[in-house]
């Protein structure tokens, strides 16, 4: 069991012929991901990495029955790629694109509202269900099948958490990077809710960021849940001087004025287990068992 993707999820790749896309799609295929087709405008009818390429996403979905798309399209193209996904009524879209303009994201979020499509990203490593499906750019050799759900706004700290969990002899049910742009697709609430309903997930590791209210909002929601899995939360940034902007897109009025401690306090008050060091995650997890 897992959330959002598993070994049977049929995946199509938008922008499959690009350099990075080819590298990562090949790795994902080797990993066992059921990638069934690619989409590149004007390259329909050709084959790439042994997969059929279609001109439009709709065609690819009609021909292959794909349920999810992983997008290796540049930032400027993202809104068009997502429009296609929404129109094709795909359940899941994953975008790794960096540097997406905020105004494009406002449009994208408006498109997604009321649609059947959930977006992971942009600016994220994607989603991986170990030993089943990899949609994105996760390093391959650090994951291990298991029962810990991981959801994170920091790419590199996701890898750190995954490594620690794997090395402790535990494993992950599904790992999801939300991205840390000013606007993101799925948020903590949607993912933790999915983990709460996933029988194979025993506990959730949540990695937050300094800027943005996503963690606090998730904490308010978590507090009200009745049936829920334990959440172990980590937020880096203790050593950042008060008011110092590390380069995150901040919030207007709270930019730099909310300290990491404020965030941690909010999460702890909601019943999450807050750790100060990534290595503590595995200690807490083993005590939970």
């Amino acid at each position, binding site marked *: 069991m897992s959330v959002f993707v598993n070994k049977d999820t049929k995946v199509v790749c938008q922008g499959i012929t690009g350099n990075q896309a080819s590298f990562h799609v090949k790795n994902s295929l080797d990993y066992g991901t059921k990638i069934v087709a690619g989409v590149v405008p004007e390259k329909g009818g050709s084959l790439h990495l042994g997969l059929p390429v279609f001109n439009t996403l709709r065609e690819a979905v009609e021909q292959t029955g794909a349920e999810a798309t992983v997008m290796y399209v540049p930032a400027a193209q993202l809104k068009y790629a997502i429009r296609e996904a929404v129109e094709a009524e795909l359940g899941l879209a994953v975008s790794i694109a960096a540097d997406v303009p905020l105004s494009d994201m406002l449009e994208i979020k408006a498109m997604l509202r009321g649609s059947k499509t959930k977006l992971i990203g942009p600016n994220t490593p994607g989603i991986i269900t170990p030993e089943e499906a990899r949609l994105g750019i996760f390093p391959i050799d650090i994951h291990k099948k298991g029962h810990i759900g991981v959801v994170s706004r920091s790419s590199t700290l996701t890898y750190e958490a995954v490594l620690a969990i794997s090395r402790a002899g535990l494993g992950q049910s599904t790992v999801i990077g939300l991205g840390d742009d000013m606007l993101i697709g799925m948020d903590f609430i949607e993912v933790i809710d999915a983990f709460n309903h996933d029988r194979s997930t025993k506990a959730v590791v949540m990695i937050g960021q300094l800027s943005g209210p996503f963690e606090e909002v998730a904490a308010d929601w978590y507090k009200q849940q009745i049936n829920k899995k334990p959440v172990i939360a980590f937020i880096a940034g203790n050593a950042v001087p008060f008011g*110092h902007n590390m380069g995150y897109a901040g919030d207007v009025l709270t930019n730099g004025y909310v300290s990491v401690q404020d965030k941690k306090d909010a999460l702890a008050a909601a019943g999450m287990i807050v750790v100060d060091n990534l290595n503590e995650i595995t200690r807490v997890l083993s005590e939970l068992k």
Partner: protein
Amino acid sequence: MPIPPKKQCSYTPQEAMLAADSVSKRGPWVLKAQIQSGARQSGYFLEKKAERISGVQIVRKRSEIATVAEQMLGNTLVTIQTGPQGKKVNKIYVEAFQKVKKNFYLGLTVNRITAELVLLIADVPDGNIIKVALNHPEDILHLPLCAGDSVSSAQIQNIMNFLKLPHRSAHHLEKLVNGLHRAFLDLDATMIEINPVGVSLSGELCALDAKISLDDNALFRHQDIAVLRDDSDLGERELQAKRYKFTYQEFDGAVGCIVNGDGLALSAMDLLKEHGSGAACFINVKGGVDKDKIANGIKLIMTNPRVEGIMLNILGGFVRCNLIADGIVAAASEAGLNVPMVIRFEGTNKDMAREILNNSHLPIVWSNTQDEAVEKLLKLIKEAA
């Protein structure tokens, strides 16, 4: 959007005098330090000779213009947004003082949860919006705006009531808010704050000061704005880093860090602090890395005199570790490696990377985790001292 009619930019105290004369025959005047930061009015200067003024100064006597300008120019203004190192003031704005009956704060940004534009409005008699945000957040009115439409008359009435503005200000307010909305969309802004908006005796509104943050990711659509980029408050190493297209930041510790993500940078800082040390600088190479970029990064770090050791922590998903290893070898052969270096590689092509560096016979210490890397490096630095 209405702004003060008379203003001029000055680079020297003499220019400031001339500017003052040209904007108004009589005082008071307002002198504003031009740095890329808000909260200048509650800021302070690092230099002793300017310790009594802030970044926005009302000057009543003509004879004091040059003195205040001299205190601002060339000195370092610290605000809650600049960090403790502050920013150097190279130019000031001279304006005629606008007599107003009332000031308020008007901001426009994006609500990150609802993904909507949101207007923020608050009464701030002393201009200090931060104080209101911290102590009385309920005193800030939040009004969502539809991206496509202009502001509704009900919303204007809502703001009028909230601010207790005189009836005759209504159409001025509508014009101001719609102008702000259009500017936000047209400029691809991430935030515009007008602080304060002045309300004149006759009920007219005027943007007396503003801070606009633009979306770097959309700058490619605004070549006319892109050419205005002012890097004069960046240090030499920061400028160089920009040329190489990576993020570089300096702090006051002893460790030079190379990482491939903001999260890793933050957690490295936490760990260094835990061990009683700190970072001298950070290079975040993010996704796109090649051999030259990394080599330039390492050479750059070694020109920072604070750096006593280098910690390289790469968790490669997008980044391929072998390219980083090639860069390290290139930097060491071109510039030498004169401080201890601890490396931790994980992820894509890490074994290849280890082999490259082991074959180079550089004095590199390996580590499996970030904690271990910090401990090993701090020990090496201690031994070298």
